[in-house]
């Protein structure tokens, strides 16, 4: 059976040649996007030939869009790098073009060395040693990112859109690394932002008649009791113990978070809330994406408000509600699609411990979906959120800028967490002396080759930035080499400057990921010796 699926096995030198062709194609597509004066890449629409091509300046997305290359040997190299870049994009949101050009430099130099008689496995081993040297150097150079001005500078080095960068600098100065930011299409042409106090979840009122303020289409309650549950209440009589418990506990308003409320139960709740000055009760839908998400949201609500989750699966019923099960909040609100809490009265120590636990889980996981969920949960609990309204002349412009804003926001989160480095490729150049020192200490030819390759590869990003901006890379590199440490070339002013003073920064987390992806990935790719093709080319499934 295996024999029938295997059409062709490819050996050296065709393996390296094929891989190299594929890598060159991906890097050629991504390379123009690197630097503050990039060019963009247009991709033919996958929907219809009559629609506008997709215009992209993001290396990760560009690589993702290249789903197959006709040359099957080259396709394997291209897909190897594509996967690496997309994974990096998912994880840190930036740095893919930098990683791509470094990857290509290392791979090309490595192939030349191995073809000339070098040992691929030894080369890989020493490259990984060199990688650790670079990572240590970057860690030593990293500084903390604080203040809206510095945040805006880092944002600008990611998005090259000064108004957007300024806005994101202000937003992240307020919401912080984990803060919740929603990016929405604006109605005008400008950028606008709004800050929302408290936390909110999807799941609005279960009846339109529960909306008290018809002008704002929402209900606000003060000093409210919160029933935190996924209970499905069919019989109006089931509400009686909940309402009695609430009123006996001294509350005049109640927000019931439930899985379901029947029409008759809804009518009963509305009837007891007729005199809102005496008592108001509303029911909102428990947040639901998945069962796990709902359970997590209810748990967060319980910690926040000091209540207890009455889960259907645990056997709770409305009749089992006790006063201490009810959460409390200074304010609670709901509209047709969301409900929110301001000033939850849970134990602040428990809240801080809960957030610390979520943060630890966030740090420990690499899975992008889990990280996103955990970050959203932490963000919600931090006490506020921001909405960025992105305007523009056309829908296409708005969508492109929204995408840019999201990508920049992701990278900024990483920069706040991991600190920043001198930008414009300067931090990578500054790692060369440490590698040079290792090179001078070594007598092993494979080790020396590995450090030489990495020293040269560290120049690749800055050379590409210069070339993309229309400068003579060799000429400018000579200028930079003669300048003091920390100096680099500002392609917009056309001058050698102290990059940190000029506000040119890179995210330390992104740069570390660049090194991991480029060095680790290329070192691994160099050990690929044989390609095995299936009889039928694999179906290109991924068109995201």
């Amino acid at each position: 059976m295996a024999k029938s699926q295997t059409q062709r096995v490819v050996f050296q030198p065709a393996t390296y040649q094929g891989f190299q062709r594929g890598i060159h194609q991906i890097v050629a597509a991504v390379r123009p996007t690197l630097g503050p004066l990039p060019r963009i890449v247009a991709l033919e629409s996958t929907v219809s030939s009559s629609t506008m091509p997709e215009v992209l300046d993001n290396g990760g997305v560009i690589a993702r869009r290249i789903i197959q290359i006709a040359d099957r040997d080259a396709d394997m190299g291209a897909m190897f790098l594509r996967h690496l870049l997309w994974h990096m994009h998912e994880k840190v949101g930036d740095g893919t073009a930098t990683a791509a050009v470094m990857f290509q430099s290392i791979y090309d130099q490595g192939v030349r060395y191995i073809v000339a008689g070098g040992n691929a496995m030894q080369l890989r081993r020493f490259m990984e040693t060199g990688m650790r040297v670079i990572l240590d150097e970057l860690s030593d150079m990293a500084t903390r990112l604080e203040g809206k001005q510095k945040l805006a500078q880092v944002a600008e080095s990611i998005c090259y859109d000064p108004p957007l960068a300024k806005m994101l600098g202000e937003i992240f100065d307020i919401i912080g690394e984990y803060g919740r930011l929603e990016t929405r299409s604006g109605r005008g042409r400008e950028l606008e932002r709004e800050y929302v106090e408290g936390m909110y979840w999807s799941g609005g009122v279960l009846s339109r008649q529960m909306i008290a303020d018809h002008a704002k289409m929402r209900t606000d309650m003060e000093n409210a009791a919160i029933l935190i549950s996924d209970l499905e209440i069919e019989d109006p009589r089931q509400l009686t113990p909940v309402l009695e418990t609430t009123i006996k506990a001294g509350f005049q308003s109640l927000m019931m978070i439930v899985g379901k409320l029947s029409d008759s139960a809804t009518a009963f709740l509305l009837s007891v809330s007729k005199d809102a000055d005496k008592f108001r009760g509303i029911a909102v839908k428990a947040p639901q994406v998945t069962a796990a998400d709902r359970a997590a949201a209810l748990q967060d609500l319980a910690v926040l408000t000091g209540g207890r989750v009455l889960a259907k699966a645990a056997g709770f019923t409305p009749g089992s509600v006790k006063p201490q099960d009810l959460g409390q909040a200074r304010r609670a609100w709901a509209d047709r699609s969301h409900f929110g809490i301001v000033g939850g009265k849970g134990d602040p120590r428990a809240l801080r411990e809960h957030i610390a636990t979520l943060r630890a889980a966030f740090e420990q996981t690499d899975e992008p979906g889990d990280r996103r969920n955990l970050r959203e949960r932490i963000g919600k609990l931090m006490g506020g959120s921001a909405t960025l309204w992105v305007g523009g002349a056309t829908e296409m412009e708005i969508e492109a800028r929204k995408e840019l804003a999201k990508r920049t926001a992701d990278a900024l989160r990483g920069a706040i967490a991991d600190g920043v480095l001198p930008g414009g490729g300067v931090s990578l150049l500054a790692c060369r002396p440490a590698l040079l020192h290792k090179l001078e200490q070594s007598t092993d030819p494979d080790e020396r080759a590995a450090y030489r390759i990495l020293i040269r590869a560290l120049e690749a990003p800055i050379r590409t930035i210069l070339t993309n901006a229309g400068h003579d890379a060799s000429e400018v590199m000579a200028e930079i080499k003669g300048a003091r440490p920390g100096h680099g070339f500002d392609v917009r002013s056309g001058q050698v400057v102290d990059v940190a003073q000029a506000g040119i920064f890179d995210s330390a987390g992104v740069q570390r990921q660049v090194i991991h992806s480029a060095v680790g990935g290329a070192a691994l790719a160099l050990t690929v010796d044989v390609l095995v093709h299936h009889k039928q080319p694999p179906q290109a499934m991924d068109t995201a």
Partner: protein
Amino acid sequence: MADTDTTSSEHTQLQDLVYALAPSPHFAQDGICFAARRSGLYRSDDGGANWRTTYDSLNLEAPLATTAVVVSPAFESDHSVLAGSQGGVLRSVDGGESWNVAVFPPPPPIVSALAISPDFIRDGTLFAGTVEDGVFRSADRGGRWSAWNFGLLDLSVLCVAISPNFAADETLFVGTETGVFRSTNGGRAWREVNFPTEYAPVISLALSPDYAEDGVLFAGTESRGLFRGADRGDTWEQIGEDAIQDSVNGIVLSPQFPARPEILVVLGTGLLVSRDGGPSWSGWQADLPTDHGLTCAAAPQGLDPDAPLLIGLVGGDVIRI
């Protein structure tokens, strides 16, 4: 021994007490000081010898408990006084003769502390710590207030301290039931600092007058003594643990700190002073009444032994020593 003058307390249903004292910036010349008391806000025009209520114009039916008070750094010219109460903030621009009620979003907060920007004359910025609603900020001299609690994971704010260099560093700290939080963007967002949670609540804070350079602050706790924060609150150490075992109701630093490393702490049972930045402590030189607890203090002319010191007491009296 210094002279001791005592005012008579006005008895209400609850025992009166002094929550806060706010002397005029030109106290040495004008002798003006305000005292926030459970029975209202009082003003002295003679350096603390005699006091009169300032709420007459409000025609209140019952005493309005006043939990915090601040005066403008430019009081001499703008006569601005702000008083925190159970329900919001009152502001006066005539030294307390008449009052306006500030606008807060509902529900009405219980104000526990007020802080005023050192650059108030230019930025008009004030902060109100509240018992349940975190921190409110006003940028229009106290007219309108809005909550800014991003990252403030504990909304029970017990004290607020603002950087002397606020105009440049936009830094302030709050002490809460569970520790200390710092804002470096003018109170718009907060971050936890590494204050050990087990030593909270933090009920008093004081920043070094040279905070911009030395990054030093002090935190007084309800029952676990006094702490010195370095690196802008990133690291903390307990100081005076042998001497300070009571609640630290107030901390006053010399205006020349750290050049003159003098620290006065107001304990429930007395005053302690350190003149070496914390290693050694001694009782204040003057005799203090032993039948009333101490709640707060103000040292409008510094901590020289012969400078006046105003002390608020449980019972509502203010003494000057």
